[in-house]
């Protein structure tokens, strides 16, 4: 016999199907021309339903990790607006571009007030593109690091990004300047940027007491033609296409540890963080695949913050992991199927948070115990997307199953989650 919560969940699922079909022929597109100026207005609405399989009422409420909010019990299912988005993109002649992108869904966070990790302002930038030799983009923008992070949510099969690239491990947006250009018919793209290093928190207007900036660089090479930032082979590529990206970033902060205690404590390290990674994406005949790898080397000012009792042995630790994904775009069914595996180790100093000495594989420092994987998490996720009206109106479903949780972090439940979303874009 179905429980009340199960019945509610089934009703919610039916509502998504019904409303999704009702959106088949909705359209809304606007652009305005005035002389050399062109302004385009677009946006998105993206409600999602999050069904949680968190067991055990006997264990009591499960709260948001690292949060003081004691009202959100993670055992409960929820509705959420992933995006209520307004996007203004303008151009003047062939020289200037600007963009303002706002997500009204993120005006408030579970803790009240703006969500610093996912700020309502997604983009606020101006670009000079009038030179053949170099282009400049300044303002609050996506950091040119990680192909997965750079790919728009509208071009990926998942409602939620993999843990490593969804903004909790490294910042995805910041205020700064990027120089970039393309060569060889856009097969080669180069980016070099300088940012505050504060990440999304830069919108609060504060700087870092060290006075340092974060430096970022990325290079992409595609063959046999330019490769757009898409995870899905939307056009059923008639010939195999591949792109390789390499990126790195370095950041030295002077923050105190307490101010950076959200999530993994890696985004805004008190000390020096060097990151590098590479990514590969390929597509052919509707099939597409991505692989992305990241390695972060941390040199905290106070090692004890990250490896209790280890400061006498080592001055650094590593974090990182990889994401691999396979997608199939079945045009006759208007459907996209995907499977993703991601693995992330938040601190290779085994049991560091528990004060146990360990082995650092980068420095080779042996401190008493062999390496193990208690701070590693692994997830496998499957997704299904139904294009009702292309990507302008699409139903999305995502089921994620943790294979292993990070045992060193409190509040990370090893429970699967189902997410259902209806993406409606007006553009």
């Amino acid at each position, binding site marked *: 016999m179905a429980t009340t919560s*199960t019945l509610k969940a089934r009703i919610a699922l039916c509502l998504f199907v019904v409303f999704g079909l009702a959106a088949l022929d909705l359209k809304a597109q606007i652009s305005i021309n005035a002389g050399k100026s*062109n302004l385009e207005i677009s946006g998105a609405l993206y409600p999602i339903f999050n069904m949680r399989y968190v067991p055990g009422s006997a264990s009591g409420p499960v709260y948001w990790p690292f949060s003081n909010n004691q009202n959100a019990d993670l055992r409960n299912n929820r509705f959420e607006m992933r995006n209520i988005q307004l996007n203004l993109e303008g151009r003047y002649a062939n020289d200037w571009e600007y963009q303002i992108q706002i997500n009204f869904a993120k005006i408030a966070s579970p803790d009240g007030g703006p969500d610093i990790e996912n700020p309502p302002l997604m983009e606020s930038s101006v670009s000079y593109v009038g030179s053949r030799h170099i282009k400049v983009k300044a303002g609050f923008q996506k950091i040119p690091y990680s192909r997965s992070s750079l790919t728009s949510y509208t071009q990926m099969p998942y409602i939620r990004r993999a843990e490593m690239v969804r903004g909790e491990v490294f910042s995805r947006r910041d205020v700064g300047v990027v120089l970039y250009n393309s060569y060889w*018919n856009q097969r080669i793209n180069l980016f070099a940027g300088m940012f505050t290093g504060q990440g999304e928190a830069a919108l609060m207007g504060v700087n870092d007491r060290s006075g340092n900036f974060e430096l970022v660089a990325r290079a992409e090479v595609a063959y046999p033609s330019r490769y757009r930032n898409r995870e899905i082979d*939307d*056009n059923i590529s*008639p010939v195999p296409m591949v792109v390789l990206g390499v990126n790195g970033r370095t950041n030295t902060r002077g923050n105190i540890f307490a101010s950076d205690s959200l999530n993994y404590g890696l985004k805004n390290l008190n000390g020096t963080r060097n990151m590098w990674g590479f990514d590969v994406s390929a597509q052919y005949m509707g099939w597409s695949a991505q692989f992305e790898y990241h390695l972060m080397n941390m040199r905290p000012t106070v090692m004890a913050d990250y490896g209790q009792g280890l400061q006498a042995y080592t001055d650094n630790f590593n974090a990182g992991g990889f994401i691999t994904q396979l997608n199939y775009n079945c045009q006759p069914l208007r*459907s996209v199927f995907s499977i993703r595996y991601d693995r992330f180790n938040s601190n290779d100093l085994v049991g560091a948070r528990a004060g146990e000495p360990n082995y650092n594989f980068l420095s080779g420092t042996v401190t008493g115990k062999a390496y193990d994987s208690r701070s590693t998490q692994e997830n496998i996720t499957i997704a299904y997307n*139904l294009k009702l009206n292309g990507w*302008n109106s699409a139903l999305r479903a995502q089921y994620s199953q943790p294979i292993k949780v990070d045992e060193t972090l409190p509040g990370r439940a090893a429970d699967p989650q189902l997410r259902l979303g209806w993406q409606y874009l007006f553009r």
Partner: protein
Amino acid sequence: MFRITIGLLTILCWLSIVKVQAQKPVRLKPTNQFHLSIPEPSDLCLTPDGAHFYVVSDNGLLFETDLNGTITRQSTFSAYDLEGCYADADNVYVVDERTRKVHLLDHKNLQKHHTFEVPYMASRNRGYESLCFNPAKSSFLLISEKDPSTIFECDASWRVQNETDFKGLSDISAATYYDGKLYLLSDEAHQLWELDAVTYSPTRKFELGIINPEGVAFDKSGNLYVISDDRAILYHFGPLPSPTKP
């Protein structure tokens, strides 16, 4: 709960089933290909003498090339995002997708002498992607790319006289008229569709198998030419196969 998930996915799969296109496209293979020195070429058309092409680019430039794509002339005129072109004995016609303007240029010096605005409020990259003349209806055709793909029939003053939503292709990246038929090119489907020039109903479909086809033209001998925007390549296909009689 897991059974609910599987059940839902099954329902969604069934809901997504659409009618399968009954007519299978004929696969065409290029007989030759030439790299272009034109950045992001987006359409081409034959010059009235049949010896050259006009080629427009996403950067708002107009070129004249020989039939192998070698540049012979470049216009000093520049717009913003030229996506379609057509030439008759009097003028070269180019359409700017961003500004929704049709510019008329002189063959001799490739200088602009007239501009017409044909408003269309869709987003910047959903504007007019194709331009050609349809003798069967004595109309210029402007075709929007997608969402929806609409065929606008215009008079000589570029006033819209009629419009038809075209369904079946996910997008239309170029159009041309040849030998009593209208031909529509799709970038996303990599297909060329032959249409009845009056009713716009498809008569034949061809699979091209090339990346990002954005321009299509026939020469006076009936050879097919297609331009790939992303690869900046001009493909020669030879004449289309003769239609098979039922």
